[in-house]
């Protein structure tokens, strides 16, 4: 085997080295391993896993939050394990889950560029489109893990602290734990799907810059801007075009009669924008001069 490279003669000029196939480059598992051992991955995982414990400790010290005039999921956090899980999801939706998603998808290409390892991957050669697909899928996988981790740990911690019980809803009704868990699953899936637009935004920036911080920060910033715009009620129906407008639509899954409309619209919007942003990423990156 060792002589394979040496035996290439002038008569035969294969267009690739023995054993090389473009379709086998950068296997999914390899990219997962490359990213998994990174410190930022560990830190994010640790923070998300510790968050429920922090909130739990806060409740233990300061007492359960409660306001007489209105009820939200946060007021019901200590009602049961499922309630605590929902509270974690509620807290995570606005900001806490945006950052891991932006980080996993925004840092992935830019950090390789900043380490100069990108050029060796491309010269291996890993076809550029394939590199993007693999990196984005792995970024999504890590994002999905982050989105799942928070409510999952919340469920475990909450169940240990407050017991296994019905999911109490702000409207006063409640769902049995058996009913609530699949609904919670739907909510988590929706949160993930609605974050894909953030992921795509971060990924696009990641292919356009060599500075990982720029890509991650840019996506988080964009998320904040759309959130602020959505808060301007004067914009009326225009807000329905903002991804942030739908970010809490998962609450529709957690009511006595499940309602899909808002979630379907939110996912439609998120995926539509994401497709265009990803197309921009592919268009830019496949034609880009890699000089990092």
């Amino acid at each position: 085997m060792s002589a394979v490279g040496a035996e290439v003669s002038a008569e035969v000029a294969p267009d690739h080295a023995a054993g090389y196939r473009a379709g086998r480059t950068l296997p999914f598992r390899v990219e997962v391993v490359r990213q998994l051992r990174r410190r930022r991955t560990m830190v994010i995982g640790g923070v998300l896993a510790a968050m429920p414990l922090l909130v739990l400790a806060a409740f233990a010290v300061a007492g359960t939050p409660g306001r007489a005039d209105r009820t939200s999921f946060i007021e019901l956090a200590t009602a049961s394990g499922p309630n605590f899980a929902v509270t974690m999801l509620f807290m995570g939706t606005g900001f806490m889950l945006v950052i891991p998603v932006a980080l996993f998808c925004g840092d992935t290409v830019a950090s390789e560029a900043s380490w100069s390892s990108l050029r060796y991957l491309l010269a291996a050669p890993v076809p550029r489109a394939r590199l993007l697909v693999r990196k984005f899928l792995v970024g999504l996988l890590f994002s999905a893990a982050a989105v799942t981790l928070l409510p999952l740990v919340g469920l475990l911690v909450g169940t240990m602290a407050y017991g296994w019980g019905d999911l109490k809803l702000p409207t006063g009704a409640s769902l049995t734990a058996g009913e609530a868990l699949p609904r919670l699953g739907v909510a988590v899936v929706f949160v993930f799907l609605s974050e894909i637009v953030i992921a795509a935004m971060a990924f696009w920036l990641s292919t356009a810059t060599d500075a990982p911080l720029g890509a991650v920060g840019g996506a988080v910033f964009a998320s904040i801007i759309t959130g602020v715009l959505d808060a301007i009620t004067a914009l009326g129906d225009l807000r329905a075009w903002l991804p942030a407008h739908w970010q809490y639509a998962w609450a529709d899954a957690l009511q006595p009669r499940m309602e899909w409309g808002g979630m379907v619209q939110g996912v439609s919007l998120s995926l539509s924008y994401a497709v265009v942003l990803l197309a921009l990423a592919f268009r830019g990156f496949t034609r880009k001069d890699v000089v990092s």
Partner: protein
Amino acid sequence: MAGAVALVAVAGVGTTVAVAAGGERSVRQEDRFLAMPETPGSTQVVQLDTSFFTTGDSPRPAVLLGHGFGGSKEGERERAQELARQGYAVLTWSARGFGRSGGRIGLNAPDREVEDVKHLVDWLAQRPEVRLDGPGDPRVGITGASYGGAVALLGSAYDSRIDAVASAITWWNLADALFPQGVRGSGAIDGVFKRLWAGIFFTTGSVGELGPSGGAARPALAPEQGGGQVGCGRFLDELCRMYDRVATSGRADPEAVALLDRSSPSSVAERLKAPTLVIQGQQDSLFPLDQGDAIARAVAANGAPVAVDWFAGGHDGGTDTSDRVDARMVDWFDRFLKSDGPKGDGGDTGAAFRVTRTGGVDSTGFQTVLRGASADAYPGLGGTGARRFDLKAPTGEPEQAFANPAGGAPPNISALPGFGGALSQAATLGAGLSLDFPGQFAVFESAPLDGSVHLTGQPTVSVRVRADRPDAVLFAKLYDVAPDGKQSLPQQLSAPLRVTGADAPEGRTVTVALPTVDHTFDAGHRLRLVLASTDLAYASPVEPATYRVAVTGPVTLPTVDELETEAAPLPSRTWVLPLVALALAAALVLVPRLRAARSARRAHGPAYDPALAGVPLQITGLSKRYKGAADRYAVRDLGFRVEQGQVLGLLGPNGAGKTTTLRMLMGLIRPDAGEIRIFGHRVRPGAPVLSRVGAFVEGAGFLPHLTGRANLRLYWQATGRPEADAHLEEALAIAGLGEALDRAVRTYSQGMRQRLAIAQAMLGLPDLLILDEPTNGLDPPQIREMREVMIRYAAAGRTVIVSSHLLSEVEQSCTDLVVMDRGRLVTTGAVSEIVGAGAQLLIGTDASFGPADLAAAADKVAALDGVGSAEAVERGLLVRLDGMAGSQLLAELVRLGVPVESAGPQRRLEDAFLSLIGGAA
């Protein structure tokens, strides 16, 4: 019939014409008072305030649009304008006693308000804008809600010229509506007085002034003109007396029932022959769904087309948009009024039966989500199927006793006029308000449901009632009880019932018709039948009483499985946007690719040139300008060729374009012109032939968090090639990192990274190895080792390209040279060719050997055989050998008496190089 209607008095009074601008088509509005006889044949005249709306003068179908109780024609203006835009001539009017119209309220009396409708039809028949079916017979439909809906039905019954009807939230029998009786087989005479609603209904009409007064047009208001008693307001005296009587007693009497019957479509059931759209509200405790059901059944019995729409609204409030209901009404009129017109016969009137169902709440917009369910046939209140559930008292006792509190207070609460909508909306969220006081009700529950049951219609249950008084007044409610015990009352509706003769020893067994609703009882929920003794909205006996109640049969829930839920109405954005996005994305990705493919075909030769199959590298006409440096070429018109087995030195100062060339070679950047072929294959980004190239260009690139070993292993795995082809151990031996190999790369020194990167480039023993400044950061022994590695590597028939700005390096290891400067090729060839024919030696001499001696010695040396040239330099001689060996020269020098102190090769390549690039500048 039409001929029998005499046109009595149709005179325009104070006609005004206004054109409502705005909108796509301007609607012309004509306001006028029309004079009507007080009753047929009467000489007294009542002035009706009317408005006529059209968008043009051509004949068109007409629509009469009535208003609700307490309203006037003003409230219908927008709807009228919309209908006018849909191509109808629309006539609205304020009914007697309302708005600016004169006369007194007769509750749609046939000889008064209904007679007025006939005259309005007469008036329409005279209008040139109105299409006629025959002389004096206009093509006309009639619609209205509540009070206006009843007059629409009555009008169509009394005037057969009316061609289509759309009634909304109106009554079938006013007596039954105001004195409901939940006991099957009984009627309004034994009904329970709907106290709150009736009070609102009557006091609305009793208030003297409501809205602007028509002055002279309302003589009935003045008592001195023979008007009614104080407190009766605009009601006719007989109605006023009737109300006072029944409201006081809390019971209906035959006279009252007869009076109310006269104002009810039920009195003319067999004459309801016009196609009728029945819109009835689910949140309506005043005219509940069973009133609409009776209308639909009567029309259907007469053979006329009928459609039933249960919308999410009604007198209790509601959330359904009137837009959908209005559109449905227009469709109905389009079908039956325009059918032989330009629109053709195919007008779709919608499903024969449609129910608006309340989903959850859209938490984004904080609105209840509604969706329709429809069936091809109207099943009536009995449904098309039925589910029966046994009910038991939670205590286990078959008979439960409870009290009617003296004075009927405190009352239990179900629906509240005007609040029911909000309450029942809250109920769908599981937070409904309903109140039963302990000791005032009996409870019977089913077992938890195995599966969900969708009730559509009027449930019935058989109960035995015993009382210590002749009459037992009960309020039956069917609650939905969630597994956590929370109960909700669908639509907040209760069914009042009066069981007469309940003081018989064994009581009376009656079948109770519960409120008609459309409601899903979910799996695991229970049905809870509550029979209470009081209800805030109804008059119940003031005398204390004790009731004993037992259920004697299962509760029957009608179901309509044929109802198919329509897809949730999502904005078109939901599906259009993804399609647009996909199209845009495809265009973004594919257009540049197609364009690139086309220009590539034009600009370049074939992807593979067999003539170059054995040539590791050939570069021709290569040019590259970076963005932002349009006038400066990084590489310009570069061309050279590398043969197998060569160690090629790519030599040039910093900025000569070496690295840019190597980047293009690796497919990292695209050349502006020219091409690079590796073994005959043209290089483009990601070209598979690059797998035959190993490269180390411009520094190492590793994942800092991984060890050196993991970096190399993962890099090789990323190439997707077999593990065994990597020759990992050989590469690691070259790197020579020892134990450091298992440390994270971020802890490495510059030189360690460098060596690891070179090892990475050698993974898989590529046919073409490219090393960019490989000896940077290496110490001298490592440099020497590296040199040997390269030479050995090429000796195996592979090719090595080394770029450097250091001559010493290329000089000692390279066979061939390519010299670049400022992006251009300066020269190319074997090292010896560039250096010159022979090597030069610098002979250092003793300080005592002066310049004159040196010059003399130089001449002598130059004369020697095998010496090309010799010249004197400071403290030494520079000798170019031409065949003579170095050792022989030294012997000759000693022989010539030159005091040799040192001898070594002169770095003339350096001079040659400098002069080369100097010349190019």
